[in-house]
């Protein structure tokens, strides 16, 4: 029966580092917070009495961040509340990109995707080269065999 004793200690030693490794490398600590006082919001319901007296389907939300002038317009859903939530999320992303540049969450994600892609390409490249090497080896061995 195989003894586990040599294996376990090394496994236990590496466990803490496995557990403490962060799930994502994205740093979200400098994502800007939206202050309600800085925001100007307009829902395109038009003028008029509103409420029960009106039935309109337009419910786009326009949200502007007054200090920077950044704005978003959202009409992704048919619910005003949902559009307002999404508009806020979109504005935070825009503000993050403006304030934090390449360190914004969006740009960090892009960089990490680029790195992953490069790693994949490298892996494929080296695999290809390895296979090529092996097939050349086989070819030369075969020739040797024939010669002798």
């Amino acid at each position, binding site marked *: 029966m195989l003894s586990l004793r040599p294996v376990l200690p090394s496994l236990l030693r590496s466990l803490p580092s496995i557990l403490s490794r962060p799930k994502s490398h994205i740093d979200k600590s400098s994502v800007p917070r939206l202050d309600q006082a800085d925001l100007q919001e307009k*829902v395109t319901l038009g003028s008029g*009495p509103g*409420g*029960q007296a009106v039935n309109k*389907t337009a419910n786009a939300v326009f949200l502007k961040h007054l200090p920077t002038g950044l704005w978003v317009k959202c009409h992704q859903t*048919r619910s005003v*509340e949902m559009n307002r939530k999404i508009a806020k999320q979109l504005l935070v992303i825009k503000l993050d990109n403006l304030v934090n540049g390449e360190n914004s969450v969006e740009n960090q994600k892009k960089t990490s995707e680029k790195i992953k892609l490069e790693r994949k390409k490298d892996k494929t490249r080296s695999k290809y080269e390895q296979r090529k090497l092996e097939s050349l080896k086989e070819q030369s061995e075969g020739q040797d065999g024939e010669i002798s």
Partner: protein
Amino acid sequence: MSFLMSRALARLVCGHHRHSVLSVRTCSTQTPDSSTHPTLSQVLDNVTSQLSAAQVPEPALSAQYLLSCCLLPQADLHSARPVLAQDWRQAPAQHLSPAQATTLHRLVQCRLARMPVQYILGNWDFHNITIQVRPPVFIPRPETEQLVDLVLSSLPPPVPGQHLHLLEVGPGSGAVSLAILSARQDLLVTCVERSQAAVELTRDNTSLLGLVDRLEVVQGKVEPGAQLEGLHEEYHLVFSNPPYILRKDLMALEPEISLYEDLRALDGGAKGLDVILPIIELAGEKLPKGGLLMLEVDPCHPHILPTKLESLDTSMVVDRVVEDFTGKERFMVLRKT
């Protein structure tokens, strides 16, 4: 067009009957000419022009909804599948099939007859849910989404194993109660509704959202001296979007509303308070001390209601007034003393 005629027309033209299988019917004998094969963009422009020429409100947006709707697979029409105005841009084909063109023609006829887009699509979004809508039951308005948040923000944090019972007067499609129930698992709601059609629609939407065990609908009319059966002794909170339009404003409503929606869901009488006052009295009976009543109202009501309250034999007082996102005084919170 009389109210009953428009209801019959609505059912005929768009097949809105609870138990009928959807069939494609047109109310015009003309068929669209498909020999020129216009692209979807061209079709959209044509429909927009047609609606615009007929002075139909929101012609461009309506056209997008109708086009997106006709591109749905036949079986999905009038199902609970939401249609977004921009869906047509994702369509794989650049031209309408003959069947789709026929469907679009039918939908355009409905819109030309001023049927609300929501009724044409058969469903609409409200707050965090999608619900079915059908004439003549009142279509939820976007401002009313704020009533959902008002109610939720006034509730204490959930206690495991405990439930809070809420009461809604006039659910209509059930939108407000169902959005509230979707947001919190510890709530139970009783709805009182006078319209049989609305009772049925609320129940259908409750089933659709899988909330049958948390929402019960009682049919009845809230009016002075009403003896409503099926209500609990007490409720934690009462809320309503009652009919609040002033009688004088009722006649100025656009055809989308006056022809297709049940005017009983809108008509608040001379001062718009005919249903609001009985609701306040009911809340006074059903709330504990400190309990809240939350109402959507006409912007004139925060000014005329306090005086009216004094003449009522009620323990309810005005707690605060809340504006909607257009800045109008749209909600009133009353408290039982």
